[in-house]
């Protein structure tokens, strides 16, 4: 009798293992804008970054704020995107898309000489430090006083507000961006993209 019980227990355990293994899904690539992408309530998902970038770019390019009265193409520096959420964020996901869109539009140029984080290329400064290095042909070393200073600065802030009611969680995200005329210090364009997400947690996890 004991042997039968052991056998049944062993069989159940084996079936449980098989069922658990069957629930796993193999790793695969899904599209960046796929419906299968995870949607979280308290986090910023790829679709949220896409929406924030697309709507801000559309607003900026349609505004005409980058247009200069002297007909010259302005230079934009990407400044700080402040993070007022409760999590660590890589704001470069947003600024990278905006940089590319500004360049692609032909309405302005983007500076890599000044800025924050990944938007700055340190080589612009480092190469000028080689002016006393005899390893280099000095006629090929970039001279000082040739870097073009930006006319505009693009900055922003990401803000989150979370509310709970019972098992329901709601997160409200604001992606605010502003373009500042560096000559006057006045904001010439501003836009905010709002995203509201809600989810109810199950009673048992």
């Amino acid at each position: 009798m004991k042997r039968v019980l052991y056998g049944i227990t062993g069989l159940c355990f084996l079936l449980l293992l098989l069922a658990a293994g069957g629930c796993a899904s193999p790793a695969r690539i899904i599209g960046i804008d796929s419906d299968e992408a995870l949607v979280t309530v308290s986090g910023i998902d790829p679709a949220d970054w896409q929406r924030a970038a697309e709507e801000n770019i559309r607003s900026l390019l349609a505004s005409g704020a980058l247009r200069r009265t002297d007909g010259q193409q302005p230079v934009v520096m990407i400044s700080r995107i402040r993070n007022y959420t409760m999590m660590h964020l890589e704001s470069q996901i947003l600024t990278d898309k905006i940089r590319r869109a500004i360049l692609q539009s032909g309405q302005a140029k983007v500076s890599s000489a000044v800025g924050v984080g990944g938007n700055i290329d340190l080589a612009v400064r480092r190469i000028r430090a080689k002016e006393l290095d005899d390893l280099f042909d000095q006629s090929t070393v970039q001279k000082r006083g040739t870097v073009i200073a930006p006319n505009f600065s693009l900055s922003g802030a990401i803000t989150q507000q979370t509310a709970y009611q019972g098992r329901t969680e709601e997160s409200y995200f604001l992606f605010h961006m502003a373009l500042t005329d560096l000559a006057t210090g006045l904001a010439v364009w501003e836009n905010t993209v709002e995203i509201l997400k809600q989810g109810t947690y199950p009673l048992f996890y």
Partner: protein
Amino acid sequence: MRRLFLLAAGAAALAMLAAGCQNTVNTLSGGPEVSQLDLQRFSSDSFCRDRLAVMSVHRSRTEGGAMKLQVALRSERYGFFPEIWSWFTGENPYYINYRVDWFDPDGMKVASPSSNWMTEIFYPGETRYLQSVAPNSKCCGFMVSLKEKND
């Protein structure tokens, strides 16, 4: 004789069923302001085709010279029974994904943030305005794609 009649009726029913399942031309219905030429710039799955109508297509230019597009879409699922049905099937509100692809004068697609699927929410009978700006001033063609959002 009776068997022959049943056979003919069965064949007719099968043919009707097959015709009903067939995908017809994959275009949305348009409002009075929308031309057939504009409707050809829309592609949609069969779900959105039956639930949305293109009410207007407006183009303008930004100060930078890029083409700006505004499309008005209206949810056609309104009225007592359609709304009851939408509620029953979990389609009230109705979630769609859309994207706008932009093309240069040679017909080549130009990469743009608007080429990613974006979500829009429609309540019964509601009109929503989708906007997009061409990535540069050379772009002159566009294609709007719509599909039902899967949960």
